[in-house]
Every structure is written in C-alpha cells, then in structure tokens.
C-alpha cells in the first residue's frame, strides 16, 4: 500500500463495502499557470506573487452509508469534481481524512488512457488493468463488455478510427463491468445516442440494486432527481445543503435562480 494512501485515505476493513466517510476534509489548489516548479524557485525560496490558492474543499464532512445514491451538485467551481478526485484517491487532502469500504471504481473520464493505436479489444484489457484487474478477471468479462459497447466489428480496429461517440461507449462499457462497491461518476453519462444513454442508466441502476453506492456529479437536474435519493449541494468548497433529493434540487434551483414548476420564482429562505 502506498504511503500517500495510508496517510489520507484507504480502503478500510472496518467500513462496510460501499460505505464512504469524509471527515473534515480540506484541500486547496494553487491556481498559478505554472503548476510544476522549477529548481530556480526552489533555490530562491518559495514562489512569490500570483493569485491566492483556491479552497476546493473546506472542512467537508460526509457519511455515505453503503448502497446510497448521492448526487453532488453546485455551480461551476463549487468543489464537486475535487470531491470525487479526493474520494477516488487521485488527489490527497491537506487535512482531514477520507475512507471507503470495498472496491471503488471512478469514471472521471471515459476512455482516459486509451492507446490510440490499439484496437478496442486491447484497450479493454488496458482499461481493466488500470482499475486493478488481472488478466483472468478481464478476460472473463471481455465478451460482455464488447456486447455492451455495441461496437461490432469495430472492436478489432484501432480506437483512433472511432467516432467520439464510439470512444466513450467503449469507455463506459469497460467501467460498467468492473463490479464496484462504490461508483464515482463525473458528468460522463451523456454518452452516445439516447438509446445508449438509457442503457447506461439502466446498467448503473442495476449496480445500485445489487448494493453499490453511487456518487454522481452532474449538472443534469433531471438525471440527478431520477438517479439519486440524496443530494449534497456544494458552494465554495462548503456543504451548503445535505438532504433528500427533492429538497436538495429545490435548494439548488433557488441557488442557481432557475425556476421550477414547484417554485416559479423564489429565494432561499
């Protein structure tokens, strides 16, 4: 186990598979253009000037029990994607802790890391490996993934010849077959045509029925209401609302100034 994971996060055995605990989690990002340093800066002392860091997560505490479906909403820059990256273990915390039980699968970008010169089939092997599967585990799922992607004969040709729709379909097909206890999804469900979108939603619903926890980041209010029982509204890295999906989306619409049927014109009480 990597040390980075040990200090801020881990798949803990004392949590039920699918359970997530974020405890007083904080994380700031530098917004300078040159994020990597140079030796000159190191030698001449820390960088001076530039804008102050952005607090993407500010003392966020969330407990998500196993099997719950949670939508995270908020305006652009509210800290939604950062929350998912922290949960996925991609970005470490400045303070606080994050932990989950069981197997976590993150769909932050479909088809990330595809080798463009490789066939769809070869990229399935790579995609599965990227999520920690071994050869036998991936090969057992290979035919299901190919069938789900509906790519037909295209599965044997390099993905650089794919349309963008085909590309994300393959990416989703891989991620949807990884047997997750925790599923993190960031705005990636609008893939392919409408029929395929419905298929993706059905596949996720089936995983939720099987007991998976779902954390979904989306600006698609209808999707969040359809998919999630609980909604967390973030603003400036803070949790400003945490409750049922219906009330959460009302709060969100008020915050955004987008009227709904229930609240034609309203303000936050």
């Amino acid at each position, binding site marked *: *186990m*990597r*040390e*980075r*994971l040990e200090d801020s996060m881990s798949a803990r055995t004392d949590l039920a598979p699918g359970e997530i605990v974020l405890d007083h989690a904080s994380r700031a*990002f530098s917004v300078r253009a040159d*994020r*990597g*340093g*140079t*030796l*000159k800066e*190191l030698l001449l002392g820390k960088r001076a000037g530039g804008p102050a860091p952005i607090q993407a997560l500010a003392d966020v505490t969330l407990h998500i029990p196993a099997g719950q479906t949670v939508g995270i909403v908020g305006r652009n820059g509210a800290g939604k994607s950062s929350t998912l*990256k922290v949960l*996925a*273990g*991609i*970005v*470490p915390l400045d303070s606080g802790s994050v932990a989950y039980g069981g197997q*976590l699968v*993150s769909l*932050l*970008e479909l088809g*990330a*890391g595809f*080798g463009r*010169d*490789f066939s769809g089939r070869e990229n399935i*092997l*790579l995609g*599965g*490996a*990227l*999520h*920690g*599967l*071994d*050869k036998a585990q*991936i090969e057992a799922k290979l035919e299901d993934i190919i069938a789900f992607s509906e790519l037909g004969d295209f599965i044997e040709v390099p993905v650089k010849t794919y349309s963008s729709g085909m590309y994300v379909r393959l990416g989703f097909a891989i991620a949807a077959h990884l047997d997750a206890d925790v599923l993190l999804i960031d705005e990636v469900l609008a893939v392919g045509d409408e029929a395929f979108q419905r298929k993706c939603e059905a596949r996720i619903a089936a995983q939720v029925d099987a007991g998976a926890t779902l954390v979904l980041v989306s600006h698609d209010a209808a999707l969040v209401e359809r998919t999630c029982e609980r909604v967390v509204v973030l603003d400036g890295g803070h949790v400003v609302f945490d409750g049922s999906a219906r009330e959460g989306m009302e709060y969100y619409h008020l915050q955004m100034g987008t009227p709904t049927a229930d609240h034609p014109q309203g303000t936050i009480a």
Partner: protein
Amino acid sequence: MAELKRYRYLFEQMVRRELRQKYQGSALGVAWYIVNPLVLMAAYYLMFGVIFKVAKHADYPLFLMVGLVVWVFFSQSLLSSAPSLLDQGALIRKAPFPRETIPAAVVTVQAVTFLVVLGLVAVVTLAIRGSISPAILLLPVLLVALYGFALGLGLIVSVLHAHFRDVAPILSAALLPWFFLSPIFFAPGDITDKAAARFAMEWVNPIAPFIEAIRRVLYDGHAPSLAALVYVLAAAALALLAGRALFTRLQGELAVIV
C-alpha cells in the same frame, strides 16, 4: 506492496503498449537500437584504433561494443524515465493506480531492447574471442543489478522532473561528460597509473563497475572481482531504496502538477 502486486497486469500492459508504439511504423524496428551503438563503435574505433592507434585492447570493436550497449541502456533509461510521468498525465489525473508503474514500464521497455542487443553482442564477442567461461553464469546477476540500478534512478528522475522541470535538461547535459568519464572506450588502467585517479574512475562513477564487470565476463571471459560484485549489488539496492522512498514522498501531488 499488495497494491503493486494487484496492478501487475497493468504493468505488463504498459510495457506491451510502449514496446508496440516504439517499434510500430519504423521499418527496421528493434534494429535501430543496434544501429546507434554500431555507429558510435565505428566512430571510436576509427578515432582510437585507426587514427591515433592508442587502443590497447585486442578486438577493440568488441571491447567498445560491450561497454556501449550497457551505457546506451543506462542513459536511455534515465532519459526516457524523466518525462514519463508528464507524458502520462492524462492517466494520472483520471485514474488511481500506483504511479511507479509508469517509470517502471519505461525502464523495462529499455531493458527488453537492451537484452536483445546485448544477446547479439554477446554471441559475437564470445564466438570471436573464445571467451566463454563459467563466469558467464554471473552475467544474469550483473544484469539484474543493472536493471535495479536503472530502475531506482528512473524512479528518482521521473518524480523529480514532474516537480522540477529542469531535471530532464540537466540530466541530458550531465550524461555527455559522464559518458566520456566512464570506462567505455578505455579501461581506467589505460589512462592513468595514479592510484587515486584510478580509484575515482573505477569506483566513484557508479556506472563504471557495471560496465567493467559485464565486460570482464563477456570480453575477457573472467569473473569480476568480489568487490565489483558486492558494489553492483549494493548500488542496485541503494538506488531502489532511495528511489522508492523519494517517489513515495513526492508522488502525492502528481495528479495536481502533471
């Protein structure tokens, strides 16, 4: 460690992918990796063996070639590790997996190429020099140590370069004088009789014992000294320990900085 074991298949996939991308679309493929040392060998042979006639070694092209292929593996491993994490930024930002996999795959790709080229050089050298001896059994030990040494340094330069973008240019500048100071086209004894200078050339330069030990086995047909054996194994262990420690310490922010 359990984490690394779980991702063993990812490592395998990355090595395959790199190997394919490297040799795809080039007519000569892996042959290019022997062309470079062959050209260097020809140049040094011309200069030191023919023009200046200072070379003191029989079958001088073979003497050169063994050292050159070891050096090419070592320098290419470092040069390709340095930008490797930045090159794979898209993966690092989007998926959680042990980041060591990336430089390890890059060094392993170099090692695969190196083994093919060294295999050819070894067959020719052993045949022409008749230098086959029981010492050849030590060759795998030396090669494993060399791989470990390159891997440890590869981890260091990759994670340092991700943080400080000056590392790759410094490295490529340093490798040129390092090449000339390494016992590739000479043996330290050819250059100096002074004990101190000889000691520095043989032991202070960490790649020198690797080159000399491998050349001793293949070109001379003798076992390397016990000191050389201990040195290469210790250098490999030290590089791996330091590489792992530094990588672990500096990898946390990789998704943010690459």
